C-alpha cells in the first residue's frame, strides 16, 4: 500500500544529487516561482491558491497557512519571513532531512511565501545543533544567488528577496515563534506577550510571517500542480496533503514516512513502520512530539484514532510536530514523564513564574516517584498543579509540559501508584532520572 501513496516533499529524497541546483532544476525545480513571477500572478492570487489548498502549518499548531499570510497588513516598509527550522521537539527529525536532502525545495518555498506576502528579507533560523543542514542550506543559497533566483530582480522582475541563514544556540524555546524573533534580534530567547501578534509587529517591530520548513516545502508543489490536486490528498479539505511522520521507538522500521493525512495510528505503526519490535504489545504512542498527550494502546487499536490534525485534537491530543514515539509494554511511563518533564524544566526560558517554578516542581516530584521516594499526596499535588500550568503563561511551554504529564498521569495512574506503594520502579527501569 505504501508504494502507491504519493510523495510530495520527500519526492526527491532518494537521490543525493538533489542537494544541488542543477539536479533540482531538472526535476521542475524553480518552475513554480518562475511561473508566478513570469505570469505576474498577484500576491492575493497566490494567497488564495494556498488557502484553497487547505495547507496547514506543519510546525505544531497546524494553523492554516494562507490565512496566516492574510493577517499581514498591507503597509509600506520592510516585512519579514522567519523560517522556523529550529526543530527541537523531542522525537522530531523531519526538517533536518528536508534541509539536507532537498534544500532548494525550501528556498523555492521561501520565495513563493515572500512573493505572496510582499517580503524582501527572509531568515532561516536553523537549530544550532544542525551543523550539516546549515552547511547544505548555505551552499544551496549560494548556488541560488549565483543563478539570480535569490537576490535582486528575480527572473528579471521587480521581485527582490534576500535570504539569510541564522544559527540558533541550543534553546528549545527559540522554536516558539516569538522566542525565535527575539533570538534573531540578538536577545535572550524569551517569548513575547501577544498581542501584538508577529503578523502585525514581529521581527524588529515589523510585520512578520513565521513558517515551518515542511510547510514551505509544500508550496512549490501546490503552485505547480494546483490547489485542487493538493486538497484531494488527505481525508478532507481541512486536513489535506501529506505529513512527515518521524517514527521512533519500539518499532521494527523506525524512520521518516511521508503519508497522507488521515491514516490511523495503527496503520502507521503496523503497516509502515513494521510493527512493534519482538512482537511485544504496544503501551503508548506520543503522536506529535513530546508536547502531544500520549495515546494508549486501546486508543490506537480499538478507537483507531486517525493521525490528522482534527482527529487527534478531538481525541485530546495533537498532530504537533509529527514526532511519533512508539513505546512498548516494557516502558515505564513514570520514567517517560520524568524524563520529558526534565526536558521542559531545562528548556523553560524562566520568565513566567508558573512555568519557571512549575516545570521544575513537576520534574522533581515525578523523578522522586520514579526513584521510589514518592508519597501518596504526590499524585493529588501533580493533579492540582496541572490546571495551574495551563493557559496562564506567555507562551505554551508550560501548557505543553502540563499536557504531557497530565495525559500520562491520567492514563497510567496505576503505574504511579505502583511506584509509590512499592517504593521502587516495578519495571526495574535501567535508566536513572
Amino acid at each position: 500500500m505504501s508504494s502507491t501513496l504519493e510523495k510530495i516533499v520527500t519526492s526527491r529524497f532518494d537521490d543525493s544529487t538533489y542537494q544541488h541546483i542543477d539536479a533540482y532544476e531538472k526535476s521542475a525545480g524553480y518552475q513554480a516561482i518562475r511561473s508566478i513571477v513570469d505570469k505576474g500572478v498577484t500576491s492575493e492570487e497566490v494567497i488564495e491558491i494556498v488557502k484553497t489548498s487547505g495547507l496547514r502549518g506543519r510546525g505544531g499548531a497546524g494553523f492554516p497557512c494562507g490565512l496566516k499570510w492574510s493577517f499581514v497588513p498591507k503597509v509600506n516598509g520592510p516585512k519579514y519571513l522567519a523560517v522556523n527550522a529550529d526543530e527541537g521537539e523531542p522525537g522530531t527529525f523531519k526538517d533536518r532531512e528536508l534541509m539536507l536532502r532537498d534544500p532548494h525545495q525550501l528556498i523555492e518555498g521561501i520565495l513563493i511565501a515572500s512573493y505572496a506576502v510582499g517580503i524582501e528579507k527572509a531568515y532561516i533560523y536553523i537549530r544550532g545543533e544542525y551543523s550539516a543542514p546549515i552547511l547544505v542550506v548555505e551552499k544551496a543559497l549560494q548556488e541560488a544567488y549565483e543563478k539570480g533566483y535569490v537576490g535582486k530582480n528575480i527572473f528579471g522582475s521587480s521581485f527582490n528577496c534576500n535570504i539569510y541563514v541564522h544559527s540558533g544556540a541550543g534553546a528549545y524555546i527559540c522554536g516558539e515563534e516569538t522566542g525565535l524573533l527575539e533570538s534573531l534580534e540578538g536577545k535572550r530567547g524569551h517569548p513575547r506577550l501577544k498581542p501584538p501578534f508577529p503578523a502585525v509587529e514581529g521581527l524588529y517591530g515589523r510585520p512578520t510571517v513565521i513558517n515551518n520548513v515542511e510547510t514551505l516545502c509544500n508550496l512549490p508543489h501546490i503552485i505547480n500542480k494546483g490547489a485542487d490536486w493538493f486538497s484531494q490528498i488527505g481525508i478532507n479539505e481541512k486536513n489535506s496533503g501529506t505529513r512527515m511522520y518521524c517514527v521512533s521507538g519500539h518499532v521494527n522500521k523506525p524512520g521518516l514516512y511521508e503519508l497522507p493525512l488521515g491514516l490511523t495510528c495503527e496503520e502507521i505503526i503496523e503497516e509502515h513502520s513494521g510493527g512493534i519490535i519482538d512482537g511485544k504489545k504496544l503501551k503508548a504512542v506520543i503522536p506529535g512530539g513530546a508536547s502531544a498527550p500520549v495515546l494508549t494502546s486501546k486508543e490506537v487499536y480499538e478507537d483507531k484514532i486517525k493521525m490528522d490534525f482534527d482527529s487527534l485534537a478531538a481525541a485530546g491530543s495533537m498532530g504537533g510536530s509529527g514526532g511519533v514515539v512508539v513505546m512498548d509494554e516494557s516502558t515505564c511511563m513514570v520514567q517517560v514523564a520524568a524524563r520529558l518533564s526534565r526536558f521542559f524544566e531545562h528548556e523553560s526560558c524562566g520568565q513566567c513564574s508558573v512555568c519557571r517554578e512549575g516545570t521544575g516542581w513537576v520534574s522533581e516530584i515525578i523523578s522522586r516517584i520514579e526513584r521510589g521516594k514518592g508519597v501518596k499526596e504526590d499524585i493529588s499535588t501533580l493533579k492540582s498543579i496541572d490546571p495551574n500550568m495551563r493557559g496562564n503563561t506567555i507562551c505554551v511551554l508550560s501548557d505543553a509540559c502540563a499536557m504531557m504529564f497530565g495525559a500520562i498521569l491520567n492514563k497510567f495512574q496505576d503505574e504511579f501508584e505502583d511506584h509509590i506503594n512499592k517504593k521502587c520502579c516495578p519495571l526495574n527501569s535501567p535508566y536513572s532520572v
Partner: protein
Amino acid sequence: MSQESEINFLFNGKELKAKHGQPIIQAALDAEIHIPHFCYHKNLSVVGQCRACLVEITDAGNGKPIPKLQPSCATFASEGMVVSSETPRVDEAQKGVFEFLLKNHPLDCPVCDQGGECPLQDQTMSYANAISRTQELRRIFPKKEISPFIKPEMNRCVHCTRCIRFTSEIDGGEEFGWAFRGDKTEVGIYEDLPLSSIVSGNVIDICPVGALTDNKYRFTSRVWEMEHTDTSCTLCSIGCKQRVWSQEGILKRVTASENSEVNDTWICDVARYGWSGVHADNRISKPMVKVDGVLKEVDWDEAIQHIANKYVSLKQISGGVSFAGLGGSHSSNEVSYQFQKFFHTVLESDQVDCRIHPRDYSQTDAQISVFGCAGGFATLSDLSNSDHIVLYGSDPFQEHPILALQIRKAHSKGAYIDSINPRKIDLRLNNRVSHFIPLIGMEIVFIKAIQKIVSRKLFPDGMSNFSKENNPKGFDGLEDFLEILSADSFEHFFEETDMEMSLLEDIATRLISNKDKLTFVIGPFITDISLNIEILNLAKILECGFLYASVPPNLQGAFDMVVSPRGKDHYEKNFEVRNSDQVFESVLAGDISSLYLMNCDPISEHPNGKLVREAMESSCFVVVHATHMNATIPFADVVLPALTSYEESGSYTNIERRTLMNKRAIKPSNGLSGKENWKVFAEIAKAMEIPMRSNSLAQIQTEISEFFDDYKLALTSSNSNGVCLPQEKEGKFVVSKISTLEQEKKDSFKLILTPHLPLSGIYVSSAFHLWDMPDACIRMSGLDCDNFGILNGSEIEFKIEEKTLKLPVEIDDSIPAGLIFAPEGFLKIHNDSFLNMGEYFVLLEEKKENS
C-alpha cells in the same frame, strides 16, 4: 480628541475609568482596588511575567469573552469591557501562581529586611493558600557582591525583573541581567561590572522581595519600629520627593517617594545616603566664639550677645555699608527671607547675596537682562515631554541625576538630544544624540553661529515679514540683534575647529522643526555672562523653554527671597551693591568690616580661593552659621550651629521655580544644641534692641506671601507635588560682543573643575555612607595618557601653578586631548592647603613620567 477621552469599563461590578492605552491593573490601582502583582511597575515597561495579576474578561467590549485569563498589566482597558479579579477561576489561578512563586522562596521572613513592607508577604497573606506542599530542597544561588550600597540575597528573588528593567530603561546602565534558564534562572549583574550608577539604589525600592537590600540600613531596624516623613530632598536643586525613616530621633534610611511631576518614583543615591551627614562627627554642636585666637564653645545667649555687641558698635562707626552677608542658597526660603530682612532692616545694609560662585550670578543676571526675571521658564514635565533637548554645559548624571532620568525619559519617547559640552558627556544613549565639543573659548562663537543660521531660517526676508503686532513680548531689540548677527562672519571659527558647517545646519534644523517642544538645559559649566546671554538670546528667538541646572539647592528660592542686590529695590534703598568677588575685594580694601556667612563656605565654594582667604585673613568680623566644620571656620570670630533640612521644616524652590515643602523628619539629635536657623536673626536683632518679628515659621510664610505675590499660592497650597511659579517673559535682546579665542598656553593642559553631586559642599561630603562611592580622580584622554606613558589608575605628579600634587589619574576617552577634568570639591579632600589655588580654570603643566 479620542486620545484624551476616558474609557468606561466594569471591574468587579464597579464602574471604572481608564485612560487610552492604560492597562487594566493601573486603572484598578488608581481606583484603590488591589490586584496582586510583582513585575508590574507604573514607570517600567510591561513584561507580564509574574502572572499574579491574571483577571477574567467576560466581555472584551465586543460582547465576547476572552477564553484565557489575561494578565491585567498587559491588557488595555477598552470601552464596555467587563473584568473580574474575584471569580473562582481567577482565585484558583492566583493560588497557583503564589504557590509557584513561593516554591523556591526561602521564607526567611523573620530575618529579612523586607518583612513588614514586603509585597510577597502581604499578597501571600491575601491571595495564597496557607499551606506549603513542597518537599523539595529550595534553590540556592551562590552569594555575590554587587555594590557597597546593595546587598543581594538572590535566593529570595521572584524574578520580577524590575531591577533589570530599571537599569536598562530608566538608568540606562544595563548592569542587571539574567543568566541560565528555567528554575535555574538567576538575576544579577554581569561579571566584572560593578553596579556604580548614581541612581542604582532605586532597585532596592522596587524589588518586591528582600532580594536587593540596602547595605547601609540592613539589620539596623524593622519597618514597623520606624517613623517616616514624606518630604523633599534638599541636596540638589531638583527637590525629589523622598521618604525619610527614623527611629528615636536617629535617621535610618531614605527611600523614594512619588512626585509624578518631578522625580516619578526615583531618587539618586546621594539623596538615599546623604542623610548620614546629619549624624556626622564634624557637625557643629555648640556655638563658638573666638577668644585669643581660639574658638571656644559658649551657649547660644552668649554667642548672640557677642554678635549683637559687635554689630551695634560696627554700625555706629561705619553704618550699614560695612556689613555684608553671603549665603542662603543652601537654606530654606524662610531662612533666606529672614537673612535678607535682617540685613536690610536691622543692619541697614543691602550687601546680601545668595550667589557665591560667579556662575550663580552670571546665570541669574543673564536671565534678568534677557527676560526681565529669573526662573520659571520650563518645568521638568515640559522637559520630559520635549521632542528636542539641548544641553549646554550640563552633565546631568554628575550634577542632577534625576534631571538625567527625565532627559532619558524624553528620549525614550522619541526626543533628540544635543549636548554642547567640552567633553562627550554620558547619558547612556546610543541613538538620537549628538555631541558638540566647541573649543574652550570658542563657545560664544559657536552659539552665535547657530543663532545666525536659525535666524536666517526663521526670518528669511529679514524683519519684513515680522509685523509689530505679532511681536511677542520681550522681542524688543530684535532688529538690531539680527542686523549685527548678519554682519558677523564665522568663517574663522570653522577654520580653527574641526566642526563642519553642515553639523551646525543640522542642529539649527532640529531646533526649528521641534521649536514647539524644545527645551534648553543650561548647566553649571557656563560661568561667562556673555555666553549665558547669547544662549538666552537663542532661546528667545526660538521662543522655547529652558531650565538652569543650578548647583546650589535653593538658589532660585533665595534669589526670589531677594537675597540679592534686587533687595534694594524692594526696600527702596540706594546703595551700590557688589557681587561676591567685589565683596571680598572690599573686605580686603577695608570697606567691609563684617561678614555673615549663612550656610556657605566660600573658601571651598568660590573659585578664587586665594582672594577669599586673603579677605578672611584681614581684620574682618566673620560670623559663620553652618551645619558642619568647614574650611572657612578657622577664620570665624563666631560660629553658630545650623540645623539641616532633616531637622528643620521650610520651603525650597527648585530649578523649575516649583516650591516644595520640606518637613522636619527628626528633632536635632543628642548633643546638638539646635536652634532653628530662622530664629537666630530675630534673636540677634533683639539683642541689638531692634525689633524683628518672627514668632513662627507660619508667620514668616505669611510675611513672604505678603511680600512676594506669587509665593502666596505656593505656600498655601496643599498640593504635595509642589506648585510651579511660572514668570512672564519680558526683557529684550541683548547684544554682546564676541570675545576672541583665549590664547592657549602650549605644552600645558587646561584643568576644568566640574560639579559632582557626591562632592557638592561640606554637608554631602560629610555624609559617611557616601564615602563608598568610587573615589574621585583626575580624568584625562587616552591619547594624552598614551603620549605621556600614564597608566590608568596610577598617581601622577601635576604641577599646578607653584604647587606640585600627586593625584590619581583615570583614562576617560570622553575628554578631548589637552583637557584635564576633576570634580569640584575633589582637590580639597586630597590636600587642604591646595584649596586656595582653586581657580576655575587652571593652567597645568604636566610632568613626564616614564612607567
